[in-house]
């Protein structure tokens, strides 16, 4: 497969929401090539680190040659990235993997927990551009950690927080089940595309809810996050359990896959820490 290994330049650094940095990178080829849901492997030069770090493109603008990444600091690599400033160079490998399937005309629901929201600005923009009706369900610990609704122009944005400081008090998955709740919701079953990204516990909760409410898993697309070595398919390190048996490579067949392809029973939280 063909990828660009190219030094790009940080055009802008800002705080997207509490605890999350947004880096805007100037790199026209990537901004043009990337599809919603794809990711890049970013090289980091932090002490004692070795591997690149995988990050979804939050959005891209082919016209200006810009591409955005939204992330939080969890360790040495993200700390190094967060310390970058305007004009600094960044070596990115990508775009990589398969993005979301955004074709079709059915209404779409984008549901995210925590930093899972980072992938959706570009996805929502692309869905809206295709004339689809889009609902964004965003969950966070607290109000300050929500990505502003303004980032999802044209979509119906509903939020939930663990501490009840904004929107529904509880899990973002509740918002989804409410949407499908009878009587109104029944008709929607299977008639909506669901795109999701978030911590594994949230994803498994969502899958359980889907099963309970008979939302076909085939209508759900999940952006998986597994540890990654290469990001291109050579290390076989990013395995995710396939329902059909064996494993799929998240970096190649994913990160965005249909939920019915995954053996959720074997899906361990991809991350230590």
């Amino acid at each position: 497969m063909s990828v660009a290994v190219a030094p790009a330049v940080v055009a802008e650094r800002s705080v997207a929401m509490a605890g999350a940095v947004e880096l805007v990178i100037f790199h026209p080829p990537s901004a043009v090539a990337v599809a919603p849901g794809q990711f890049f492997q970013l090289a980091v030069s932090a002490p004692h680190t070795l591997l690149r770090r995988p990050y979804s493109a939050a959005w891209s603008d082919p016209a200006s040659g810009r591409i955005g990444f939204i992330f939080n600091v969890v360790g040495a690599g993200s700390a190094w990235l967060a310390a970058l400033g305007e004009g600094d160079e960044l070596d990115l490998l990508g775009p990589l993997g398969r993005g979301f399937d955004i074709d079709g005309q059915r209404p779409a629901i984008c549901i995210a927990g925590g930093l899972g929201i980072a992938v959706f600005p570009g996805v929502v923009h692309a869905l809206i551009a295709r004339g689809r009706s889009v609902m964004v369900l965003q969950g966070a610990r607290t109000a300050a950690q929500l990505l502003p609704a303004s980032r999802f122009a044209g979509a119906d944005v509903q939020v939930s927080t663990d501490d009840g400081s904004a929107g529904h008090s509880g899990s973002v998955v509740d918002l989804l089940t409410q949407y499908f709740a009878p009587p109104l919701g029944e008709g929607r079953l299977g008639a909506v595309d669901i795109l999701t990204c978030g911590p594994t516990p949230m994803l498994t909760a969502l899958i359980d809810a889907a099963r309970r409410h008979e939302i076909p898993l085939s209508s759900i697309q999940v952006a998986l996050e597994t540890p990654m070595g290469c990001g291109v398919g050579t290390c076989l390190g990013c395995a995710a359990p396939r329902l059909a048996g064996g494993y799929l490579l998240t970096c190649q067949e994913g990160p965005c896959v249909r939920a019915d392809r995954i053996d959720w029973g074997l899906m361990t939280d991809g991350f230590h820490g």
Partner: protein
Amino acid sequence: MAERPDLTVDLGRGLCLRSPVMVASGTFGYGFDAPEVDRSALGAIVSKGTTLRPREGNAPIRIAETPSGMLNAIGLQNPGVDHVARVYAPQWATWDLPVIVNVAGDSVEEYVAVARRLSGVAGVAGLELNISCPNVESGLQFGIDPVLAAAVTHAVRAVTELPLIVKLTPNVTDIVAVARAVEDAGADAVSAINTYVGMAIDVRRRRPIVSRGSGGLSGPAIKPLALHAVWQVAADVHIPVIGVGGITTPDDALEFLLAGAAAVQLGTVNYVRPQAAAEIHAGITAYLVQRGLPDIRALPIRPVSALAHV
């Protein structure tokens, strides 16, 4: 202005490489998935470890980063030798770059069967016997015992005319003894080394990070260990030694060539800097030119003992 130095390598049995820079098994797939960069700097590709039947590999988590290194416990996920011979080899046959198949197995019979299946298959330039995989049951078994190592080498040697490289494990008290044994058993070359058995624990979840518990350590962290292994083996065996372990920069590769390696393999660095091979090839060339050396065979330095007088 000196003329371009000669970087070709003869690994024996007709396996001649245009460059001493190879890519190591498991870090370049079967040559189809790696980032598309210029491959003219490469001397050969070594494929992912291949077994008789397809293998699904280990459950996640399979990898973990450690200081300047990474642990992996992939578990030899591979499509099986038949698929490799039928689907991949024909495509390799159209390339200008030799592909060496890394062969793994649980028994002498399996190694032999895989080697047999690959013999005479167009596109297969040679075999690298992986008797050193720490990530499957019985994986290390053959590599840590000179007698078993010799037995599997001998058995494979008997069924194939392909150039035969045996890949050594460093997880032994005396790697030279194993190297000697496989040389006597008919190996055309040895590659040193495979990964070091290591471990990382998730202190929050209170369990090992990789599902298998332990994994193989690779990357810059192991470079000094791999270099010493090559230094020892190269001083003892009379077949080419391929140096592998932590090579990232031109100087790293030169260290191995100075230590007596005939060629080098790049592993983990392929994940991080796909352009490394080209940079290393250029760096070796520049080093030879600066010193007016005609070829890489002029690189190895004397054994340490002799150095005392320097």
